[in-house]
């Protein structure tokens, strides 16, 4: 048994730390020292970055990854795509408030459907 004994968890004390705050300008990088002494290299997108270009967004993310940088900012925005709620023609009212006349088709509708399937 002891030959297969492996540590799964380490019981340890979590000390109190202050929150880490950063402030850096668009188009620049900042190295952040984390609580454990490790570092993150953050790069903020430039102010004139165009977030509507999907391919460019993917490229920028890949380039940052290759450089070991964490790219920050809004990479991509598309305001024209329909939402799933629009595609499903969902009504504006909450479903729970709809009257029975709108949520229950009624006997005639059932009979018409059954007739169609005969």
């Amino acid at each position, binding site marked *: 048994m002891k030959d297969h004994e492996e*540590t799964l*968890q*380490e019981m*340890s004390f*979590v*000390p*109190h*730390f*202050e*929150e*880490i*705050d*950063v*402030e*850096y300008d668009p188009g620049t990088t900042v190295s*952040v020292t*984390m*609580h*454990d*002494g*490790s*570092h*993150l290299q*953050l790069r*903020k997108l430039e102010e004139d970055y165009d977030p509507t270009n*999907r391919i460019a*967004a*993917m490229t920028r*993310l*890949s380039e940052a*990854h290759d450089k*070991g940088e*964490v*790219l*920050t*900012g*809004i*990479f*991509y*925005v*598309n*305001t024209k*795509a*329909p*939402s*799933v*709620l629009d595609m*499903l023609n*969902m*009504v*504006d009212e*909450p*479903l*729970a408030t709809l009257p029975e006349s709108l949520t229950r088709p009624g006997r005639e509708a059932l009979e018409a459907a059954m007739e169609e399937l005969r």
Partner: protein
Amino acid sequence: MATTPAAEPKTNHIGLTVIDYKGGKTTLCAGCGHNAISERIIEAMYEMGVQPERVAKLSGIGCSSKSPAYFMNRSHSFNSVHGRMPSVATGAMLANRNLLALGVSGDGDTASIGIGQFVHLMRRNLPLIYIIEDNGVYGLTKGQFSATADLGSKLKSGVINDLPPIDTCGLAIELGATFVGRSFSGDKRQLSTMLKAAIAHHGTVMLDVVSTIMRARPNPTNM
């Protein structure tokens, strides 16, 4: 003796104070980046004048998914099953499209057990703000690597991550999310601005927020 009348508390354009957007006292570690993210959510919702009762907070499991308890206690809240928040969010939004859905997940909750649900959520463009509080580890279970941990990261125990990370932003863009961004929990100005833009967007917003953790955050420079 004359007393000076107390100053009227500052209110937003719907007449609420920032207190109206607060939640319970956090039980996360002091200095955890997740607490900073909660503060930014409170700030953004207050400044945008969002009615708290219009907001549905949804989450999965993990340190991140506990955090909706620490902001906006007047809002609806559903702490769902591990990695299954997208299904619950979809149901909630289908039942009432007037809600403002705010999903809070973690890197483990999203990029491992919840990756299937995440993928389908992104391609549907459901109106939802999906925040990943991303610290690269499973914090609640003592810090094992998550699927967003960097290749070559080293834990305090000496274990090295030999798997490449999943870039949730790249994945979200590829799949059709209509608002994708990344910030750092300690960048107050950027995160606050991004959250306000997210509230104004109609469609799926995916924000990956790199967060600090009190235990070692897996990072190549940690080696």
